[in-house]
């Protein structure tokens, strides 16, 4: 009897959770991990695209820990829900391939955005920007404020993060030619974890007394580094730069710990991802040379690997941080 009562009670609770949405087109926006301002902004753009296109439900989801294994669990549950498309920013380009291939076998359209998936595991990859351009931009952000040159170090996300690694490679490639007086002394990894990033930033400052700039091409790392510079009264001595969310980073532009940072527009990124996924659902075919409309952002042309850059990174400094910090 007691068991029956419990069952009846849970049934009633369960009924409250049941979602009525069936007729809509459902596109899942799968991010590296939740609780990240960048992806929340991407979701904002995704919702805008959904409103614009009409009759689209965006499922914004992702794991707590930024691991490939946890993301596979999320993908498996989306396959079970028979969503129409998955747009994913991957924690690992290779490990997600088998799970995403299974999704495609069951008729789900798959695109990757931001951090890509290997070609076999997706139909389109949308790069936020061009890898080489970002690599050059992050060095330039530091070099612009170092006319005499000097030592700089990179504080990255996880050592396995696809996009960060590509940018750092590109940055290293442009160093000897375009920035001969900039000396990259170290690359350390903060795993997109505030505590670890803080420790790594402290380590850099301790190990390299002549350090002039810390470049953190990750929104978590750049805040941690700027906080360390602020706390240790190194404002004016060590310039923190990299890729940062204006809203999270405004205080460090204001207090002078950083001169300038850059980022593409994550709102546009989420917006474009939903647009692309919707084009595929409507029956457009992804092949090299194909041109896709991404609404107000413009259009993209797929390259040989079915990937395309969205737009160039955008610089934030004292002149415009106020305005953008209110957006994302």
């Amino acid at each position, binding site marked *: 009897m007691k*068991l029956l009562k*419990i*069952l009846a009670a*849970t*049934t009633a*609770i*369960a*009924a409250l*959770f*049941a*979602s009525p949405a069936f007729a809509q087109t459902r596109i899942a926006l799968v991010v590296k*991990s*939740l*609780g990240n301002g960048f992806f929340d902004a991407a979701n904002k753009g995704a919702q805008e695209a959904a409103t614009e296109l009409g009759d689209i439900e965006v*499922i914004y*989801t*992702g*794991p*707590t*820990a930024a*691991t*490939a*294994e*946890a993301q*596979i*669990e*999320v993908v*498996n*549950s989306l*396959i*079970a*829900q*028979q969503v129409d498309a998955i747009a994913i920013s991957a924690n*690992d*380009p*290779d*490990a997600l*391939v*088998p799970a995403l291939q299974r999704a495609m076998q069951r008729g789900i359209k798959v695109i990757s955005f931001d951090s890509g998936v290997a070609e076999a595991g997706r139909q389109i990859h949308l790069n936020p920007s061009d890898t080489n351009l970002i690599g050059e931009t992050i060095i330039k952000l530091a070099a612009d404020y170092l006319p005499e040159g000097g030592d700089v170090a990179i504080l990255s996300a*996880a*050592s*396995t993060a696809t996009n960060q*690694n590509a940018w750092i490679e590109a940055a290293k490639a442009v160093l000897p030619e375009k920035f001969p007086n900039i000396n990259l002394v170290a690359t350390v990894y903060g795993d997109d974890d505030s505590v670890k990033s803080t420790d790594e930033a402290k380590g850099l400052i301790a190990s390299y007394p002549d350090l002039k700039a810390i470049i953190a091409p990750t929104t978590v790392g750049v805040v941690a580094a700027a906080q360390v510079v602020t706390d240790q009264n190194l404002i004016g001595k060590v310039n923190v730069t990299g890729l940062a969310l204006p809203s999270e980073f405004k205080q460090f532009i204001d207090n002078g710990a950083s001169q300038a940072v850059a980022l593409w527009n994550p709102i546009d990124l989420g917006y474009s991802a939903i647009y692309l996924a919707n084009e595929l659902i409507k029956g457009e075919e992804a092949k090299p040379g194909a041109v896709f409309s991404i609404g107000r952002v413009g259009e993209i042309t797929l390259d040989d690997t079915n990937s395309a850059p969205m737009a160039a990174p955008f610089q934030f400094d004292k002149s415009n941080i106020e305005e953008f910090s209110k957006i994302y």
Partner: protein
Amino acid sequence: MSDVTTGRQLPNRLDNPLKSTLLSWESLLVLVAVVIFVFNSYSSPYFLNEWSLSDMTFNFTEKALIALAMALLIISGEIDLSVAAIIALASTMMGLALQYGADTPVLVAVGVGVGLLCGAFNGFLVTGLKLPSIVVTIGTMSLFRGIAFIVLGDKSFGNYPASFGWFGQGYVWWVISFELVLFLVFAAVYFVLLHRTNFGRRVFAIGNNDVAAQFSGVRVDRIKFILFCLTGLMSGIAAVLLTARLGSTRPSIAEGFELEAITMVVLGGVSILGGAGSIVGVVLAALIMGLVTFGLGLLNVPGIVMSIFIGGLLITVIALPILFRMWRQRA
């Protein structure tokens, strides 16, 4: 003075078998599993589908394989925190073997073998050098994963042969995956080992009082060494499955698996202080973890809420019997 030999009887204070079965930890877990299953069925229209249920099992099989051996280790009063790192090292070594042209049987042998060696190394440090297992395995956790990082850096190994991929992606029959079958087979093996053999009895004896066990003629160190080897072996097997499922190796593979495996063991009713526990409980706990994570996933519940839920479930299930006992004593 009456005759002391007649009319004296020990009162039967033991609960009758039916009652004690109903009040056992395992029954509580079955109840929790049923409730969650029913909840999932009603909350999502996609849950009661053979492929969904099959996909669900992938959420726990690899961790549960480790939890089986971990249960024995914890019952004996030891612990191994390096299991996830063993997976990373075993997977890396398989990737390395692949670069030298190894085929599927060799890859499996390398994965399982490296796991066994790592377990033996832990076992040697704990039983040979008499170091506390928690300290040893925190150390080897960094050591094993560190080696994987040195070998791989920010690169990855991929392009495993399709026949190897079958271990992590293949189905034995219909929707029954190879991983699930392997888990069930090992669950049966560990059940017999722990509950039906002398070896299992000795594991309990060591966990309750290893000094007394030693004086009773149990070769404590040898059994502990074997348990560490078994845990390493299961981690090696999990490494084969996970690598085959992901089709690639990175040094960050399986991060956090050790805590999930230990959560399964504790949720399964194994005393963290050693000396008590059952394989049935661990298997049920693994199933519950799978049901919870997959069910909440179907509702697109954010991962952080899922962690809160699992934490809450763990505390509730552990606190319930204690509260029940306090309530019964007062009544």
